[in-house]
């Protein structure tokens, strides 16, 4: 980022002659706005449309397909519609907190994007405490949600808000603990640093590094789902129990901001998981062209991150939700101990396992992953056969 500013104000740059102290904020704001409006908002919106399509497909439906080609503009219609909706602040609510809550939620979510990498050179702020920063900033969302739940003066909201606070706060622990194995291995908290410590090949990813990081990945992903209020941990807004949870009283745009956070957060989850465990933007060095390489890196990172967005959608379409006490049991009695074992195991691994054996284990783990995938697709085939489908019942295209 700083290099970009320097090159812009250098001789022949677009901002030649402008002093650094003026150019830097200008470029920052411009670039930030570009990221927010050009990437974050569309990603959140498109994710909402895609989720409805994926969901619909799993449920033998089609999903939104009338607004724009394949219903692609559905998110725009939803957004604009909510812009035009009346904004209700219940008379019994605490008006200030009620209005403030969506701001906090959006800020907490937008700020995470500052530390999310896109390519090897493109990251808004490569903080040396990157991963710590992200965990810290997502905490703002908790405050917002709790505030929304409390200020509505609605019992469903209150229950939703408190559930959400307890849940996010609890799952912070396994999520934090699952980052530790990676930090142990890399010795840095910087997002780019963690990615650089991995390679492009699957066996060079921390996912397959050893059994402990393998387990840590799942613990982290599940904890991240819980922090993002996703099924099976969507108890704060549990529609069938709490009507709409903490946002029961929110209408129109204010509601949409919560909505935006939820969808946008999915990408953040994917990006962090990709960074920590899946080698981030790492691609083989196939070309010298920096532009081409950047595009490849961006594509790789985006696809990896979006795969987890897809997985989250898919999980949501599969699983029921847990109960509050079970949620806590899963966290404190299962995930926290497992995360602690993962961390200690990784540290011990670094100390005691020789490099050649470690290398072999990496290949072995990768092979194991491949086996799991194969078993999975065999199960899929089994279910398809059991359902006695006629040839005309198969339909492979995503477009309908």
């Amino acid at each position, binding site marked *: 980022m700083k290099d970009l500013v320097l090159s812009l104000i250098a001789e022949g740059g677009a901002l030649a002659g402008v002093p650094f102290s003026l150019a830097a904020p200008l470029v920052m704001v411009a670039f930030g706005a570009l990221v927010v409006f050009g990437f974050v908002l569309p990603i959140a919106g498109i994710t909402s449309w895609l989720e409805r399509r994926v969901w619909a497909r799993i449920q033998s439906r089609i999903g939104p397909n009338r607004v724009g080609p394949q219903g692609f503009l559905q998110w725009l219609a939803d957004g604009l519609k909510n812009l035009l909706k009346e904004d209700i602040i219940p008379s019994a609510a605490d008006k200030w907190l009620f209005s403030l809550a969506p701001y906090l939620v959006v800020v907490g979510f937008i700020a995470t994007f500052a530390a999310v990498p896109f390519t090897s050179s493109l990251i808004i702020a490569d903080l040396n405490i990157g991963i710590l920063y992200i965990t810290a900033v997502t905490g703002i969302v908790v405050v917002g949600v709790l505030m929304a739940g409390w200020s509505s003066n609605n019992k469903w909201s209150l229950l939703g808000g408190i559930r959400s606070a307890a849940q996010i706060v609890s799952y912070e622990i396994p999520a934090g603990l699952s980052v530790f194995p990676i930090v142990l291995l890399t010795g840095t908290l910087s997002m780019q640093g963690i990615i650089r410590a991995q390679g492009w090949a699957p066996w060079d990813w921390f996912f397959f590094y050893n059994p402990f990081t393998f387990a840590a990945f799942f613990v982290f992903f599940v904890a991240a789902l819980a922090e993002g209020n996703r099924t099976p941990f969507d108890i704060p807004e549990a529609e*069938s129990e709490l009507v709409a949870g903490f946002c029961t009283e929110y209408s129109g745009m204010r509601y949409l901001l919560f909505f935006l956070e939820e969808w946008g957060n999915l990408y953040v989850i994917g990006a962090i998981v990709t960074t920590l465990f899946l080698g981030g933007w790492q691609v083989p060095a196939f070309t010298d062209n920096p532009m081409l390489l950047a595009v490849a890196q961006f594509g790789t990172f985006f696809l990896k991150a979006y795969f987890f967005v897809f997985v989250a959608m898919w999980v949501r*379409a599969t699983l*029921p939700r847990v*109960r509050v*006490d079970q949620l806590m049991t899963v966290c404190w009695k299962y995930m926290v101990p497992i995360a602690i074992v993962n961390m200690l195991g990784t540290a011990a691994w670094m100390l005691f396992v020789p490099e050649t054996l470690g290398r072999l284990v990496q290949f072995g783990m990768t092979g194991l992953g491949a086996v799991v995938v194969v078993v999975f697709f065999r199960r899929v085939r089994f*279910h398809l056969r059991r*359902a006695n489908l006629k040839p005309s019942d198969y339909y492979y295209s995503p477009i309908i």
Partner: protein
Amino acid sequence: MSLGGFDVQVLRENGFATEEMTLNMGPQHPSTHGVLRFVVRADGEVMTEAVPDVGYLHRSIEKIAEKVGYHGFMPYTDRVDYVAAMPCNQGWAMVCEKLAGIEVPRRAEYCRVIACEFNRISSHLIAVGTMGMDIGAFTPFTHALREREHINDLLEELCGARLTFNYMRIGGVAWDLPPDFAEKGLAYIDRFEPLIDEYNALISFNKIYKERLINVAVITGEEAINYNLVGPNLRGSGVDFDVRRDIPYSIYPELQFDVPVGHGEEGTLGDCFDRYMVRIREIQESCKIIRQCLQQIPEGSVLAKIPRKFKPPVGDAYVRIESARGDMGWYCVSDGSEYPYRVKVRTGSFTATSIIEQVSRGLMIADLITVVASFDLVAPEIDR
């Protein structure tokens, strides 16, 4: 406790004062299955009391019966339990036939049983589907709806409507089976049966799902009988009783089928999971029954000769049939005129709702949803 009033009860735990919250769950709530209201008093997430408040769908069907006459009441029976309207049709037809002593042609009995069993499947699909939805899994619900559409298509061919069938008449049925109904029905049953396994693998045996259902709202067999629970709710508590088998009516004695009974396969006998699994197994049994009926159905007429002005002799009769929600009682008093003197419908949901206050004490708010869904309540069946 007054229903509308708000009385704060302070509970002391560890010396800290916490207040109880009075929550209205319903009448408009996504999982109260229509319009049902619970006045929940909760301490945090734990309910100290959940008092059902019913009557939001009281449509005075019993009074209407006194105005529209025996034939004209048939469409109203559809609306007593719209999810399983066929058994209600049959109940009304049977109580009239019992009063007047009418013999129903055998083919008509077969038609009735086929229709009722198809309807039982579609009703149980709603029951298990909404169970999934209330617990947060939307996909099994839509899959259940999809299979229901197939059954609706079949029933539509049979009687021209998807939900409110008005298929049966006093003395028989209104329409004979369509020409290719047997083939279509058998083909569908063949296709449908493996899907139950898929459904089970997707949701019934899911660990999270099981954890939500097991050991929740345990009802012992004795309690169930005392509270007059019926059908799958009763059998879920381990009481081996099915009207179709034990107080035989229609052609059920001639058919081979098992009566699924809960046996506490996971956790305690009589919990939500048992009630749920009884329904899943009943779907399989219904498939068996339909298959037998479609293969054995005799030729003949499907409607006995009944005068247009139907006047049963003076007297009263009580008929019990096994609806999808269990033992459904139809009580009809005739004064010899064209109009019934008094009709009373005893329904399964009504008694099931009355036990909720008892079993929901000390459960969590999320469990109330499970309990309501496990009883498979249908609002108009409670209120009529």
